[in-house]
Every structure is written in structure tokens, then in C-alpha cells.
């Protein structure tokens, strides 16, 4: 579960402070797949970062007792001059997977991303498809209670997409997602709760169709 208590978040821009959320309080029941919808710039990604702990509110608290992933498919953290293996090792170390656990995860990512011996080449030599396959595989190699997904469900070719969907389905038996998407069919397919982010506020819809209807109207 997530609980937001009096959360205020703003960003300082060259033209002054811009508030994304003001004094926001809400609770999201446990065990639900959460969809975040809203117009561009409404604050969906900010909310996701706040939930994931990658960003901190100006005031107020966000409480959760679950483990939360980094944004699935995050490629920005890769160091181009380091090999794929070293980049995977880096994330493993940060998340405390050492020794056998680390080797196992490297093997998993290597198999999943189908990169074979490219794993020892510098990341900057990878094609963008390879890079995102590694990033997606890396996210799947770790078990989290919640996976944060920011509009990156589609990487690679058709076959790889099928594989992703399959692995993801397995993950969803034990875990949940926080999904940011503009694709309503996807939201409908994956989510149990919809959070409509609009005008600095958030409405929680337990009925997904109702939420989508409210978004479209």
C-alpha cells in the first residue's frame, strides 16, 4: 500500500517555483495494480518518482512498506564506456546482490536480453534495441513488490515483445505495477486502480472504466 500525507512537491524553474502537487493526501489499497493517467505535464512521472523514492516531496510524507523498483527499462544509468556486464554488476551492487546472486542475475540478463557475448562489449557499441533489452532484463532480474513503468512496455521486435509480456505476466502473479501510460487499452488490461492526475490534484478511481471515462471527458 501507499499512503500520501500532505504531500507538496514543487520544482524551482528559472521563472520561479512551480507547484506540481499541493497538500495532497490519499491512500492506495495494497495489492492493486496502479495506473497513472493524465495529460502531458500533469505530474504523472513526478508522482511515480515520488512513489518510487527517487524524488522527495518538499513537505509531507509518503509511506509504504513494499519494495519498489527503479523505473523499468531505465537506460540512463548505464555508463557507455563500461561493458554490459560491468553495468549489470553496478546495479547488482547497489541493490545488494553480491557473489552468487550477482552471477545469477548476470546470467539471467544475458539470456533474457539475448545478447550472448556482446555482454563484454562497451554499452556504447550496443544498438538502442540491445540497450533497452538489457535494461528491461535487468529490471526483471530483481524481485520487487511494485514495478514502476513509465511508458516503456514496447522494446525490441515482435518476438521479444511476446517474451517480455510472458515474463511480465509471471511477475504480476506476485508483484504489482505502477504504470504511467497514455494507452488506455494497456491501462485497462493491467490496472485495478486508476489515479487521474489533473490540475495539481489526484482522483482515485477503483473502477478503471470510470477513471478512463473521466480522463476522456
Amino acid at each position, binding site marked *: 500500500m501507499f499512503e500520501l500525507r500532505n504531500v507538496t512537491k514543487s*520544482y524551482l524553474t528559472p521563472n520561479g517555483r512551480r507547484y506540481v502537487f499541493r497538500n495532497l493526501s490519499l491512500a492506495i489499497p495494497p495489492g492493486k495494480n496502479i495506473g497513472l493517467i493524465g495529460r502531458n505535464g500533469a505530474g504523472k512521472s513526478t508522482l511515480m518518482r515520488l512513489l518510487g523514492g527517487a524524488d522527495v516531496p518538499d513537505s509531507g510524507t509518503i509511506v509504504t512498506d513494499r519494495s519498489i523498483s*527503479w523505473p523499468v527499462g531505465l537506460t540512463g*544509468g548505464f555508463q557507455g564506456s563500461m561493458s554490459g556486464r560491468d553495468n549489470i554488476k*553496478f546495479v547488482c551492487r547497489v541493490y*545488494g*546482490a553480491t557473489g552468487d546472486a550477482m552471477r*545469477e542475475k548476470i546470467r*539471467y540478463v544475458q539470456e533474457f536480453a539475448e545478447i550472448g557475448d556482446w555482454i563484454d562489449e562497451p554499452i556504447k557499441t550496443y544498438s538502442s534495441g540491445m540497450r533497452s533489452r538489457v535494461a528491461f532484463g535487468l529490471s526483471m*532480474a530483481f524481485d520487487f513488490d511494485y514495478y514502476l513503468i513509465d511508458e516503456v512496455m514496447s522494446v525490441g521486435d515482435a518476438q521479444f515483445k511476446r517474451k517480455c509480456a510472458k515474463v511480465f505476466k509471471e511477475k504480476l502473479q506476485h508483484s504489482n505495477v505502477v504504470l504511467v501510460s497514455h494507452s488506455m487499452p494497456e491501462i485497462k488490461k493491467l490496472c485495478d486502480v486508476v489515479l487521474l492526475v489533473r490540475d495539481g490534484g489526484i482522483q482515485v478511481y477503483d473502477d478503471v472504466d470510470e477513471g478512463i471515462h473521466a480522463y476522456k471527458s
Partner: protein
Amino acid sequence: MPHGALLCFAVTILKPRSSLQIQKSVIFALVLREARSRLGSRRLGAVWLLLEPICHLLVFTVLFAMLRARTVSGVEYPVFILVGMAPFLLYRNTALRLMDSLRENRSLFGYKQIKPLDTYIARVIVETCIAATVYAILVFGFAWYGFDMSVHSPLQWVATLLLGLLFAFGLGMLLALITHALPSLKIVIRMAFFPLYFISGVLIPATYLPQSMMPVLLLNPFLHILELIRAEVLPHYTPVDGVSETYVITFTMVLLFLSLGAYRARRMHLISTKNG
């Protein structure tokens, strides 16, 4: 590859860790990453990494030894230069690298465990390791050539070196915070380190600096640190009047307080992707 093969890797569930454990593993991971990226992908990366500062130090020591008198306060001039210049370069590099740390590590803050402070600490560790290796190589080289490389009071020397490092850390962090708010200042700060070379007495003993300017020059903690280091390494070296360890300690404490306080106040702003 058959899809079934994926299932045979049981993905282990990670144990919850304490904050200290997390920070330790993050710093360790960052140190390795930093070292890796500094070494580069080329095979000669490691050689070049060490060779560059070695050349820098060698050129200066040899050049100035030829230009000036052969000895300064009873020691060979190259030894005199090395003893002061190596720590100065370490402190300068530390401060400047911390200044660039935020920009170069921005993408890592997507992982919530990694905070800017961790990247600062990792940079200091890597920079110190490189400097220590370079210094050790040069000291052995000089000793092999026939210079007397013994350290007069080793414990105090190490203490002063660490104090200087702490000072450089505080300075670098403050510079990082300042240049985060005002990025255009970076070039000015870089340029400011050049005259520091001369007014800190890196190439000459502080007694050679104009005496009338001394009260002003003594405001510069680098001058104090270098004089103290030389006095601790060279047996017959007398630092200039007014050099005091207390001044450096006080300065460092105030600096650390300021930079950590400013960091605390700005920490959310630093990791925010909305602010370049």
C-alpha cells in the same frame, strides 16, 4: 532460446538492509564504476591515468630544479617540489572533480539508493587512490635515483594530509553546490585555481613570497597546509610565521559545516531532473 529456460533461474529475493549497509554498498559500487570509467576501455587507460600526473610532476620538478638553485632549506629542489605539489594537485583535482560530479552522475539518481553525497565520497576515494599510487611511484623513483625521501614526522604528516583532504572535500562540495545554482561560474573557478598555484607556495617556500602581502596570503588555507606538510617531511624546513594547524582545522570545520548544511538544504533540488 526456449522461453522455459528463463524459469529455471530462480530469482532470489534480496534481504532488507540497514541504511548503513546500503550506503556502504552504494559507495563501493560507485568507486568501482568511477575507477572503471577513469581507466577507460583502452588497455593503456591505466598506464595513462598514472602517467599523466607523473609527467606533470616530473616536468615541473625537473624544469624548476634546472632554473633555480639546486637546494632549498637543505633539501634537493625536486624533493622539495614533489612534497608540496603532489598533495596540492590531489586537493585541486578532488575539488574540481566534485564540482563536476553532479552533472556526470545525474542519470544515476534514478536509483533511489544513490544520493549525490555518495558520488562525492566515491570520487574522493578514487582520486586519493590514484594520487597515492602516483606519489608512491615517484617517491620510489626518486629514492632509487639517490634522493633522501625519508619523512621527518610521518604520523603528523599523514594527519595533515587527511586534514587537507577533508578541506578539499568540503571545498569541492561547496563548489559543486554553488555551480549547480550558477553553472557559468565553473570556468571562473577553474581559472581561479591557476593563481592559487603561485600564492600557495607550491613551487617556492612561502618565505620567498612578498612579506608585505603575508597577512593577506595567510588567509589561504592551502598555503598553511603546504607549509605544514613540508615542515613535517623535511627535517630542516621552517614554515613561514603565522602558519598554524588550528587555522586549517577551524577553516575546514566551518567549510564542512557550510557545505553539508547547504547540501542538506538543496538535496532535493540536486537530484531533481527538472533542474539541469
